[in-house]
């Protein structure tokens, strides 16, 4: 169950960072960076649009506000590749491990038997890029595992595999 994706790489172990030993992470598609960036463009436009009333009331600092909004989004965009790179998952023998986050790191382990349902979501942007998002639901609302940016075919394959695994290890609540 471990070696499935040839493009796996291990996270460079920087000191001070939490990391799980002996896990080779499967990464999400690089195209997800594009999807994220396009999303950020939309955010930038919306934020810049939100500063429009400042021009109408004729405030001198209005251009700065717009600039700040766009700059904030740009800053966010600069770290997007790193953020996307930090998303990883692995199907271990009995559970799925998922990680995400650079500044706020989060690792989750979900036993297969605990998965209640698996969603595939595709937004308009991701559909153009051929990406899907896989969402796992357990009985605990706080589990919150969503793997974004999977190629559509891989997502469906993964879902089928996981449903089968969940079925074979089905337990009560």
């Amino acid at each position: 169950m471990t070696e499935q994706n040839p493009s796996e790489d291990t996270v460079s172990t920087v000191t001070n960072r939490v990391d799980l030993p002996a896990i080779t992470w499967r990464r999400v598609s690089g195209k997800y960076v594009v999807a994220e960036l396009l999303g950020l463009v939309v955010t930038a436009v919306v934020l810049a649009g939100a500063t429009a009333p400042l021009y109408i009331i004729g405030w001198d600092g209005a251009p700065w506000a717009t600039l700040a909004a766009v700059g904030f989004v740009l800053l966010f965009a600069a770290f997007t590749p790193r953020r996307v790179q930090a998303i990883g998952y692995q199907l271990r023998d009995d559970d799925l491990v998922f990680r995400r986050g650079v500044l706020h790191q989060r690792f989750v382990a979900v036993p297969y038997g605990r998965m209640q349902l698996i969603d595939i979501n595709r937004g308009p942007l991701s559909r153009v890029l051929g990406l899907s998002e896989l969402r796992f639901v357990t009985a605990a609302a706080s589990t919150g595992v969503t793997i974004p940016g999977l190629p559509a075919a891989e997502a469906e394959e993964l879902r089928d595999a996981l449903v089968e695994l969940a079925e074979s290890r089905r337990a009560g609540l």
Partner: protein
Amino acid sequence: MTDEGARPAHGRRAAGVPLDRGEPVTELAASLSDGEWHHLHPASPLLKGGIVLIAVIGIVISNLRERFFENLVPGANFRGEDPIELLFREGVFGWALLALLGVLSVLVLGFYISWRLHTFRITEEVVEVRSGVLFRTNRKARLDRIQGINIVRPFFARLFGAARLEVNQAGQDANVRLDYLGSAAADDLRREILRLASGTRAASVSRANGVGPGVGAGPSLGAASIVEQRMHEFLAPELDPDAAEPESVVKLGTGRLIGSILLSGASIFLVVAIAVVIVASVFAPESLIAFFGLIPAVLGVAGFYVQRFMKSLRYSIAGTPDGVRVGFGLLTTSNETLPPGRIHSVKVSQPLLWRAPGWWEIKVNRASQSSTNGAAGQQNTTILPVGNLVDVTRVLALVLPDLLDERLALTGLTGPGAPDDGFTNSPRRARGLRWFSWRRNGFAVTPTAVLLRKGAIWRELVLVPHPRLQSVSVQQGPLLRMLRLAAVRLHTVAGPISAEVGAIDEDAAVELFTLTAEAAVRASGSDTSHRWRSAEGVEYRAAADRAAADRAAADADSHDRTLP
């Protein structure tokens, strides 16, 4: 109560009644759980609000009858005369009486139809209820998914010897309600449902001693003995007399209950409010108006006190073969059985003011969130309202039967925290984040559960049994990273408890993550609590299967087997 709501519905035979159902706990339970449709207690529509409706109409008419008739009969003016007198004089009293009878019979007919159409059945797999006249609803609860069975006896229904049975399922208000059943029928039915759900084939409790003048005795009872029986039911302890361990393991004295309520957060609020008002009136005597502002606060807090008190009175908790049974309530009582493995996490906590008397409270996370109004609602997740350490260990032993390393739990509750007290605690560098509790803030993993110990001022211990763990996560933000710390969160079903321990050493956090992730997989694989007694019944079942096979062979030629 002639038939305690146990009438079989006509002509609807459930398809595929299983042949071998084991032995039911009582005859009454057997007749109710035979897989056919049954009606509820005949007084159900009245108890569910019919009486209130009639009473309200009666009060309205008797108080406003002049206005009422004036509006009803256009142009009529009684000029201060009593309408009934007027009716007499005009010679239409008979008609008026007839109209009244008509209205009443429509009401009764409506009640009757709704009662006729409200049926339930209990099979080997499900409890199912159908109800509604115009809009039909049909609800099924799978027996192996039952999260708890609650018997609620609202004050009014208790007077009639009726009770409401709620089969709780996982989810928000996903319960199947049988309202109402006869009191004895509800008790028997609960044990029978639990027996069917437990996966055992053997009758768990034989009711040989014949306690409980159930249904059979009903018709022959005279009026006096019915009253006596009601009194008996009313005063009887909340726990079944013939359940395995009827004795409540915790005695909650009235004194302690009152003390615990007085020492709650509401009291602090009240004291602060009074202090503010006094200070205000000393410095600005003209602002006496503030006293009036205090009145709603006092009333609110008093209401809270009374409510808490009434609901927690006559608290009892005991272990039965089919799980923990918790009872509450003075006038309206509720009494719930939680089968094993239905408690997802447990929190033992101590509010600051309870520290001097050494009291603790125990809450649990459960998969069924019941917002039932009445006694069950608030107490649904509080399993021990107040108790000392002895009570706490007893209750913990009940709710997590195979967990208990008692010493470790006690260390988790009161231990000040030491490097090797069984818990892995926060390192010294976590002082900045856990000012007082860093010595204590930590976790321990036993073969059956995870224990999280937190707080020095508000002390608490969270226990999560491995088989109930849904997933586990470890988090680290920039601040924690600077200090080489991390937080671990154990995900269980939603509830008042969030099992999280923060500011622990990052290597320890990863170790906890790895350990619990493995333990969760192992435990959920071997967990059989959804049919909690299926494991112990294996030999019995094998024998029963063999016997059934023999019988089938013998019966192969004689073809008209009657269904049991």
